[in-house]
């Protein structure tokens, strides 16, 4: 339903152009939850904002994005009116920090009402009623009082619920959530995640859930996409990817997760992510990859799909996994500890 094809975003900085995202392609089916993971600075927020046309002025955006068959305008040249039909109605956005995401000088009810009213004409009473209904739907206690309050009078979790309500007001086809729980404490985080799952399945919206927390992805998402240094390096169903990661980066990430039964040292990913303005030649990960080869230095590997719904940007392992005999599908596949035996001999 949402098709992103070769999305490339670069920022114009003083020293030159910095590629924030390169050649990102993926699709999302209706109602599906895609978890977009990666370290800080890997480009995931950039991709999200690019989809909504909310990037700042000095960016160059290329590629094609189609929503339900309709081409979305990209970049600033697109013009206001074309974006207004899409935003809110078909694409919606939930930001990371609930405090700065709400206008501090306008009442909560007013802002929710704006979201309700964005693309249609309603009588004033109708707007208020619907806004109140939305607030109730996201489980905000004392919704009448919340309606009249200002954002600083609500708690962090309540503010995030308000943002959710605003985003889902028009029942959009795709909801882009940019680390919506990062600014919250763990208990509230769990609640909000539950709300997101409930509300989006009710509204039938697909979700692009951006996060750096693998645990959240495991619990919430249907599919996961891993980004590194501006490129998409792996994509596939959550259970499969977590059980048998194909890309060395994904593998290293999963291996670095501390586990209860683990007794030895923690195993972080060695090295540092490269600066986007100073990328190494070839595969961006090859300097830190335990299985790097000569050919990794020559050209960045394309996203190779090796089963019908999985792909990875690594020539070595994608090929290996594709040639592996298919395992019997034993129904519900649990996420278990990554099988270290997947490291095939050179």
């Amino acid at each position, binding site marked *: 339903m949402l098709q992103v094809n070769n999305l490339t975003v670069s920022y114009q900085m003083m020293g030159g152009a910095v590629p924030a995202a390169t050649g990102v392609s993926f699709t999302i089916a209706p109602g599906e939850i895609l978890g977009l993971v990666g370290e800080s600075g890997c480009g995931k927020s950039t991709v999200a*904002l690019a989809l*909504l046309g*909310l990037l700042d002025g000095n960016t160059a955006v290329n590629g094609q994005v189609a929503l339900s068959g309709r081409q979305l305008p990209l970049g600033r040249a697109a013009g*206001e009116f074309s974006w*207004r*039909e*899409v*935003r*809110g*109605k078909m*694409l*919606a*956005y939930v*930001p*990371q*920090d609930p405090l*700065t*995401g*709400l*206008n*501090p*000088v*306008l009442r909560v009810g007013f802002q929710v009402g*704006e*979201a309700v009213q*964005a*693309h249609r004409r309603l009588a004033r009473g109708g707007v208020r009623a619907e806004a109140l209904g939305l607030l109730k739907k996201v489980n905000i206690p*004392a919704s009448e*009082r*919340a309606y009249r*309050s*200002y954002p*600083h*009078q*609500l*708690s962090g979790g309540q503010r995030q619920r308000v*943002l959710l309500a*605003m*985003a889902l*007001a*028009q029942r959009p086809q795709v909801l882009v959530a940019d680390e919506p729980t990062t600014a919250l404490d763990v208990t509230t985080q769990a609640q909000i995640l539950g709300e997101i799952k409930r509300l989006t399945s009710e509204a039938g919206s697909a979700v692009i859930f951006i996060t750096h927390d693998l645990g959240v992805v495991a619990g919430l998402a249907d599919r996961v996409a891993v980004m590194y240094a501006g490129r998409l390096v792996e994509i596939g169903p959550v259970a499969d990817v977590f059980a048998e990661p194909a890309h060395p980066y994904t593998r290293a990430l999963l291996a670095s997760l501390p586990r209860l039964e683990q007794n030895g040292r923690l195993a972080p990913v060695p090295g540092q992510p490269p600066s986007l303005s100073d990328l190494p030649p070839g595969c961006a990960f090859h300097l830190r990859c335990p299985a790097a080869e000569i050919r990794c230095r020559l050209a960045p590997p394309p996203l190779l799909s090796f089963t019908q719904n999985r792909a990875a940007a690594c020539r070595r392992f994608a090929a290996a996994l594709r040639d592996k005999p298919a395992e019997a599908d034993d129904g519900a596949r649990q996420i278990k500890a990554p099988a270290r035996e997947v490291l095939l001999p050179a």
Partner: protein
Amino acid sequence: MWFFYVVLWEVVAIKRYLLKRLLYLLPVMMGVSLITFGLINLAPGDPAEVILRAGGAEPTREAVEALRDELGLNDPLYVQYGRWLWQAAGLDLGKSFRTGQPVAAEILCRFPATLELTCAAMALVVLSALPLGILAALYRHALVDHLTRFGALAGASMPGFWLGLMLIYCFSVKWGLLPVMGRGGIDHLILPAVTLSFGMAATYARLLRASMLEVLGQDFIRVARAKGLAEKWVIGRHALKNALLPVVTMLGLSFGHLLGGTVIVESIFAWPGVGKFCLDAIFNRDYPVVQGYALFMAVVFVVVNLAVDISYRLIDPRMRLSDKM
């Protein structure tokens, strides 16, 4: 209708804050009065002598002594201060050395002229800075932006008295469009008001631009756009209100700057306000007038600051004293 009740409720909540502020003001005002009283001791020479000379009489030793006794200048300082303070509280600021008229009356009857000038300048500042600042923020690096930046630098650096003289030269002398000096109708008001407002207008345009740019970079603007709202609505309803907050405070606090500028402008354009009155008094060594002027201006300044502070609390919902949820 409900808006009125909201304001009333806020004012009631503010009353306690107001009381606290007024209480704090008291020692400040005492200090102000003390300093103003002490000013007269800076002046060289004997006030009694000066009065006699101004009256055309010969300041003989006996006459001076007699006048000193009469004015109570031989009493200890604290007694003099107490007397002065008591009189000042009763709005009696002494009598002018030169004319013998009560100072308070003279100041009050000239104040409307200064007020007219100040309000006109304030209006000009708001009318020019607001659109310029917003446009400079929206069309960054365009001509509007560069012009306001240049104008702000020029305005902040330009001496007001020079601008006034140049304006008189161009508009009154060379082209004969506007009258040179004096108070009268709108045509008399234009040049002085422009002179007074120029520097401030430029500075505030830049301030508004900076504030606007800061607000436009905030997350909630992104969220508002993501909701599908029209750009004009986002700017007008969401951005502007936030951007105006710091500017409103600054406007009020710079009222003092404006007041200071009136002295120079009134002098150049012969505008019959309190500033010119004080200036004449200085050259006439009419110290009670100068003293009264200092006290009066300080009081006005303090009152305006208080008003600005309160209005800021009314405008910014984060500062309001209502309870949290």
